[in-house]
């Protein structure tokens, strides 16, 4: 596991009192399978939350509910003051507030990197093309690949692709970022470059929810670690406490597996 060596400035990373995401008693079923059970979670603006848990525990499903890639059946999800109902206007509003990065990047292979980044600003935000491109170049610089702007995704390495995916989300200027195992499809050498990008983002005060097994990352930037199992939040705590002093049996078992590995 890659431990990031970058020294980070925790002082910058402030958590405000404003609530960014509020989830109350959320339940979800796939058919008859109860995949999320009574989820309650409040995320303040600026918080950086890492979600861990064994495979199949519902981590992906939970964060995908937050921008309605999956529909929940009971309970409320309130993002940035907007309640997530089946009202399409609300969904559109929330989706443009919330950026998301996937395990498999999901870049659009038929568009150049630049086009990937400007697509949503132009069509969703109706930004003029020129302005959209400037923004895109700005974020591509931020993730350190401005020189690849005119290449196609297939010509980039996995780590570069994931950084483009992050830049693409950022171009929509979201206030919240969701990450679903952003490094698990990457070769070890590339994991670091992506984590560095994410750390930088965290330093700038972005609200982040991140499903990941990179415990080094969790220790370094998270201000809360949530442990899920069988569709429920089993334990949550500050990283130091979480790793050094897990309370629940399941958490202990999980940590022993993941750290021993």
């Amino acid at each position, binding site marked *: 596991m890659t431990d990031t060596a970058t020294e980070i400035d925790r002082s910058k990373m402030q958590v405000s009192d404003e609530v960014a995401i509020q989830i109350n008693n959320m339940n979800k079923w796939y058919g008859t399978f109860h995949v999320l059970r009574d989820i309650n979670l409040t995320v303040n603006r600026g918080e950086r939350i890492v979600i861990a848990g064994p495979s199949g525990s519902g981590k992906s499903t939970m964060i995908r509910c937050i*921008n*309605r*890639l999956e529909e929940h059946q009971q309970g409320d999800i309130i993002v940035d003051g907007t309640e997530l109902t089946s009202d399409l206007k609300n969904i*559109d509003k929330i*989706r*443009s507030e*919330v*950026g*998301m990065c*996937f395990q*498999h*990047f*999901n*870049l*659009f*292979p*038929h568009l150049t990197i630049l086009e990937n980044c400007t*697509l*949503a600003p132009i*069509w*969703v935000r109706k930004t003029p093309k020129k302005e959209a491109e400037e923004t895109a170049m700005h974020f591509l610089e931020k993730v350190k690949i401005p020189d690849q702007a005119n290449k*196609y995704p*297939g*010509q980039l390495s996995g780590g570069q692709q994931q950084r483009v995916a992050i830049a*693409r*989300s950022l171009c*929509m200027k979201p206030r919240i970022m969701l990450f679903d195992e952003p490094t698990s499809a990457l070769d070890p050498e590339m994991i670091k470059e992506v984590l560095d990008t994410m750390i930088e983002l965290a330093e700038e005060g972005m609200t982040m929810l991140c499903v990941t097994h990179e415990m080094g990352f969790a220790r370094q930037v998270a201000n809360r670690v949530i442990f899920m199992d069988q569709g429920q939040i089993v334990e949550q705590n500050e990283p130091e406490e979480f790793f050094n002093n897990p309370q629940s049996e399941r958490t202990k078992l999980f940590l022993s597996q993941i750290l021993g590995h």
Partner: protein
Amino acid sequence: MSDLSYVRTEMLEQKAPPASSVGLVGWLRANLFSSVGNSILTVVTLFFLLSLLASMMPWIFLGIWNADSLSHCREIFAERYGDSTEYACWAVVRDRWDQIIFGYSFGNLNEGLYWRPLVGLALIILALLPILYPNVPRVLYVATAASLFLYPWLIWGGSIWGPLTIALCIIAGVFIYRFASRFMIMAFAMPVAIVGTALLIYFAMAPVAGALGSAVPIELQSVPSREISGFVLSITIGIVAIVASLPIAVLLALGRQSDLFIVNKLSTGFIEIIRGVPLITLIFVATVLMKYFLPSSVDLDPVLAVMVLVTLFTAAYIAEVIRGGLAALPKGQYEAADALGLTYWQAQRLIILPQALKISIPGIVSNFISVFKDTTLVSIVALNDPLGISDSIRSDSDWNGIVWELYGFIAIVFWLFCFSMSRYSLWLERQLQTGHR
């Protein structure tokens, strides 16, 4: 066990293989006579092949190209070879090739119009370039759009302002759509735009085109649909069917992939019904029934009616090809589009369809080949495709009794078209497989 150790002091160079395994001998041994059974097979095949050639070659190559009629041909045979054996009378091809290729429309009835279908075809090929080859300049898309209107003009003739006004109306339709989509969702804006465009064409086209035509008359001699014949007819039906069927096919494919029950079942039903019946019955519908389904005031052109039905037929088949392309896209593409906040139609247009269509191109090309071959069926309803023309040539007293030469010539022309297209589609498939992704 130090006897085990061995070190080669000197590397061996490549040696030539034994004579029996290389060169002609080696090749023959490996490919034709590798075993007893194989040798027998080779000999039998060779015998079959040679006897086939022996029976056909004299007929083909001793045939004559210079004669005015079949009886003239026969006279020449009698004079030249003495006996009563007949050889090919290729003179009929020389005499009538222009009718078979260009039909009556651009051959005999209107002298000197060969250039129109030729330019049309060249235009179509030019228009296809940006779609088929990824690396040519994007400017050629203009040619693609233009050829949609110029090709019909070249074939049917008349004033250029007709097609141009239609183009203008369609551009206006796009603006109607843009405008309408500000107020309503795509599913409604689209029909509104289509209806608007149709109304524009219905009301504005004739006066506008008329006015423009009288101001700046640019006209080609007009050719009535039923005079379009020969390979020009086959190619025109094929091209119209493919081009016009694409948008329908895309909608049908999306419909069949859709979660909306009614939309899904309607698309599925349409596709299955069309694919379940032979093309000839649809051609009957076009030439016999279609008139009943339209108001009695509409003056239906049979060639146009056939084109409409062949288009629907093609659309059902291409819809299935595109559905394959859609299904081949990873789910992540849809999710990423959703997560970025694109609407359904934006996602389809910007993300999904460009990729799905690209994967579908080989399938579309092979569908084009089948449609092109199937256009011969129109001869059954008395349209003059190459087979229809060959019939009327054979009923002419000069060439009465000629069969093989005409069929042979038509077959060769079809073969050249279809073979080169199928090679192209194979090439494209390989290109797509190895292309950087």
